[in-house]
């Protein structure tokens, strides 16, 4: 295999009190790959994403990004990560261009290249007509685009998107998916979702999470060979619930 792992997580755990939200999961993302995190709500997807981006410290485990350890060299590691949380982190009183300019500065893009970087993401995310609009006046779909623009402005190796299409209408969902596909040409993408077709259309590899555990890791095609993705997903989840009942 010539593929190199850009982001590696080893035995990641996080618990609130006695409840294990994320229970010792390990995985990696290769260069140029779209990895889908699939699972029902409350499976620990968002918590995992927060840990990968340094927003939440895991109780156990290691994360390396592009060779940098997220905990001992956080600044270098974070330069290679772009993150869009479930709720896009936008300052509503700024215009799109102002906000992206701030993100460029925040991500330490050299002053001379900032304008070019802002212009490029505005172009890539289809925000050209709206760059002078206040973020407060944008629709949810465009807010999401600004959120994605913010995540890719510093050309990170890994882009982490937490449920990027939730709360959008079907047309917007299609546009955002197209945008994610474009991004995947240049970056590795980790995507969390509970929408099954999204995984099928976007992801190379899929990981199924349930009750904080990783139940399945593999190519999307491996899941869909015998069954439809929905059946395969339900089988895996069901199997885990049955086992829990037996042991409990």
């Amino acid at each position, binding site marked *: 295999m010539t593929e190199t792992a850009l982001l590696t997580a080893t035995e990641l755990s996080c618990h609130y009190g006695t409840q294990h939200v994320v229970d010792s999961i390990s995985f990696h993302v290769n260069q140029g790959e779209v990895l889908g995190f699939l699972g029902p709500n409350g499976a620990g997807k968002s918590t995992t994403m927060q840990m990968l981006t340094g927003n939440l410290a895991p109780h156990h485990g290691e994360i390396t990004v592009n060779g940098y350890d997220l905990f001992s060299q956080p600044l270098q590691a974070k330069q290679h990560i772009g993150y869009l949380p479930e709720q896009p982190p936008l*300052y509503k009183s700024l215009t799109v261009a102002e906000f992206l300019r*701030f993100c460029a*500065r925040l*991500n330490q893009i050299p002053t001379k290249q900032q304008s070019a970087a802002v212009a490029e993401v505005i172009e890539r995310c289809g925000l050209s007509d709206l760059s002078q609009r206040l973020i407060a006046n944008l629709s949810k779909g465009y807010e999401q685009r600004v959120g994605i623009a913010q995540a890719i402005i510093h050309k990170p190796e890994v882009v982490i998107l937490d449920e990027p299409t939730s709360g959008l209408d079907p047309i917007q969902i299609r546009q955002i998916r197209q945008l994610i596909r474009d991004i995947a040409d240049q970056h590795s993408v980790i995507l969390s979702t509970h929408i099954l077709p999204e995984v099928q259309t976007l992801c190379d590899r899929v990981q199924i999470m349930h009750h904080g555990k990783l139940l399945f890791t593999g190519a999307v095609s491996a899941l869909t060979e015998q069954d439809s993705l929905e059946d395969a997903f339900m089988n895996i989840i069901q199997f885990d619930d049955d086992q829990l009942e037996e042991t409990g």
Partner: protein
Amino acid sequence: MISLARNELYRLFLSPLAWVILALTQLILAYLFLSHVDYFLSFQSQLVTIPGAPGVTELVATMLLNNAALILLLITPLITMRLIAEERQNGTLPLLFSAPLSMSALVIGKFLGTFAFFIILLCMVSLMPLSLALGSHLDYGQLAAGLLGLVLLVASFTAVGLYFSSLTKQPIIAAISTFASLFLLWLFSSNSSDGASVLNWFAIPTHLNPLLQGDVNTSDIAYFLLLTGLCLILTIRHLNSMRLSS
């Protein structure tokens, strides 16, 4: 860090709050300034006859800075309350947490942005006593000491406000607790008649008044710097621990 401070100051001026506060502070202080000048003019003829009587700097400028200190106590919580509480409420904190920015740079950046706003406010306030120089002789040393006192005062107020803002998601709760703790620190001095008491040392006026009188002591300067530093460190620690177990 600087970009964060710039952003903070810029966003402050995008909201009407900053403009309203600047305008109303200026209005109230202008009224007080005029009444101090009036008071001084009515006593001026008697004052000349007394040797060693207080001059215009003491009776007008120092009085005005004293009023300004009280007004700052009232408005600082309003400006600092949003700093972190609002970001937590709006979910924008992940943007800063996932940027290549250390926690101390984040906190100091936010502090500097807000501090810069108060420096602008103090510059506008100081124009009033300076205008007296047109028709009178000012004691510039005393005025400078007084202004230094106010600069140190807003630095510590801002830091206290920043800390309380990091403790909660509700800006209003941050504002109330900032105001309450600053007010308490202010009250400690009047409570004790005994100058050497411990509470008295913790009081803000104990350290501010000498500066306003033109008496610059390193211990007073150290008090404000310690209060500022302590609150900044507490904020950094709190945000770090929030990441551990949010």
